[in-house]
């Protein structure tokens, strides 16, 4: 029972990361109908930037700031230089271009930092706090949950309460009409990619210390988990991505805790297939996505 409670809480913290990562995928999907397969690689690049900054300043927090800023810049760059031009030929091209970016970014990181795992420190302890002899939850898990919750609230305020958010929603919903009404759709898309990459960078910063460490491919499996989280919401629903992320996190935590960590990739695949076969449009979809 004690282990079950600990695994659940640990899974919720891990799931919060998947939720954030899935949310970033949803942000871009809503705006451009592209699944950003390069998001994991972009996030790892931001995390490496943080590693360098933390190494130079000795402060985790400067590293975190650098990762978020680097994520914003990388996301904007990718939209401006690649994605803006890739979507014209057909639906496959953006996916293929993003995969090319994965190869390029991972190789560049390997050249600069080498292909070894760099262990990364956490700002808070990862040993569980005990309440009346029960291992409950670690301070770091609480930090993760708090950080993801803050980002989600900020995004909700941005999209629900600000003019910029309204423009972003309009541009995603009806780009032609928005352009006629004076929304600079191109700029709004760039902002969307930048925001999504920054959220992805945060997810990488939070999850990498809990795994083997920093490595060019460190986010590959997280990408699949985050993708699964986003698919639970039909790729379209931010709430769905959050719920999906938490669910995926808890399931993977049980699988890792009771069956061993080798089983988690298999569990992710089975989860993804289950969701897609039972509810292809996602658990939260209201419109049918495809009729053929």
């Amino acid at each position, binding site marked *: 029972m004690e282990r079950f409670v600990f695994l659940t809480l640990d899974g919720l913290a891990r799931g919060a990361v998947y939720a954030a990562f899935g949310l970033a995928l949803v942000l871009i999907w809503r705006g451009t109908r592209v699944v950003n*397969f390069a998001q994991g690689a972009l996030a790892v690049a931001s995390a490496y930037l943080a590693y360098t900054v933390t190494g130079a300043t000795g402060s985790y927090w400067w590293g975190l700031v650098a990762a978020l800023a680097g994520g914003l810049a990388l996301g904007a760059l990718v939209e401006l230089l690649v994605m803006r031009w890739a979507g014209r030929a057909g639906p496959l091209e953006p996916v*293929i271009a993003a995969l090319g970016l994965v190869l*390029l*970014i991972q190789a560049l990181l*390997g050249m600069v930092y080498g292909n070894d795992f760099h262990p990364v420190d956490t700002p808070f302890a990862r040993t569980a706090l005990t309440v009346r002899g029960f291992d409950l939850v670690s301070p770091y898990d609480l930090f993760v949950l708090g950080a993801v919750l803050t980002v989600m609230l900020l995004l909700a305020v941005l999209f629900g309460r600000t003019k910029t958010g309204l423009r972003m929603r309009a541009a995603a919903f009806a780009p032609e009409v928005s352009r006629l009404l004076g929304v600079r759709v191109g700029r709004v898309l760039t902002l969307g990619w930048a925001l999504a990459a920054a959220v992805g960078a945060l997810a990488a910063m939070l999850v990498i210390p809990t795994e083997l460490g920093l490595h060019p491919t460190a986010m590959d499996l997280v990408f699949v988990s985050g993708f699964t989280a986003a698919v639970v919401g039909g790729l379209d629903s931010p709430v769905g991505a959050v719920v999906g992320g938490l669910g995926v996190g808890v399931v993977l935590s049980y699988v890792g805790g009771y069956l061993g960590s080798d089983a988690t990739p298999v569990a992710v695949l089975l989860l993804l297939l289950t969701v897609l076969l039972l509810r292809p449009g996602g658990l939260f979809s209201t419109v049918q996505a495809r009729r053929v």
Partner: protein
Amino acid sequence: MARVGLRHLTVTIAGASALVGLTYLLDPFRNYQLATAAAYLCATAGLTLLIGLNGQVSLGHGALMATGAYTVALLPSGMLLLSVAAAVLVATLAGAVVGVAAARLRGPYLAGVTLAVTMVVPAVTTMADAVFHGDQGLSVAAPPAPLWVAPERWQAWQAIAAAAVTLFVLANLLRSRFGREWRAVRDDEVAAQLAGIPVARTQVLAFVVSAACAGLGGAMFAVLAQSVSPSTFSLTLSLYLLLAVVVGGLGSLAGAAWGALLLVLLPDAIHSVTDGLPLGPDLAQRLTGNLPLAVFGLTLVLVVLAVPGGLQGLLVRAVRRLR
């Protein structure tokens, strides 16, 4: 139809004979490279059919190659032809399972599922450690070459034979009813459905055929390297195959051949450049593994942005201009 089949047969035999002749002009290392390119070609030819003719992106073909390679490694080594056939069969079955599961999926969903399939390979080899020996992998004892032919040349012949069979079968499939149905589904699913083409079944079939090709490619990989390990079949391999078919030219078997050749020759060319540079051992080591990847990634992005038809498209246009 029969005449087309005969022409394909003639072209295949002529091409394979020319390549076999070429093996007598190349040194052992170049012969090994030729063999590797031919093994890649089995897989890229299948993948170009799936992506270029059916419009589905798979990131799981590295994993399907792994099923073929591990089948060859696990079966007794005496009858190579039989174990290669078994490898194709196992990959076909794996492809059918993934294909049926993915039949309702499109573009990004299929790419995501097949990506997850690729991530599973190392996990499965570790979980069934007793069978697959985890990260260490298995060794493959292929029957030795006959005494009258150099081993590398023999390997090249085997791989050329596999690639020739693959290309012959695929070329005929593309000209058949199936090829026309694949193209129809890619271009307009609704119209294809109205014309009486079973869309889902057509797409599963495309996936299964390309999986069988990947299985053959994987089996040849196992025979050439005489070992299999999960690190060979990582996500990078799947991305390599994707790169090869896109840069070669989507949907064209000749493009798949250009791509396979590129996968072998470009890293080699890059190595010979970096070997000439005065670099420290640490930096040289980092560049060796990563520079080809970076060049491949950049090429892929640039081809998508600027050269939609790939190398084959460029060639066709150049030939037309000359006329």
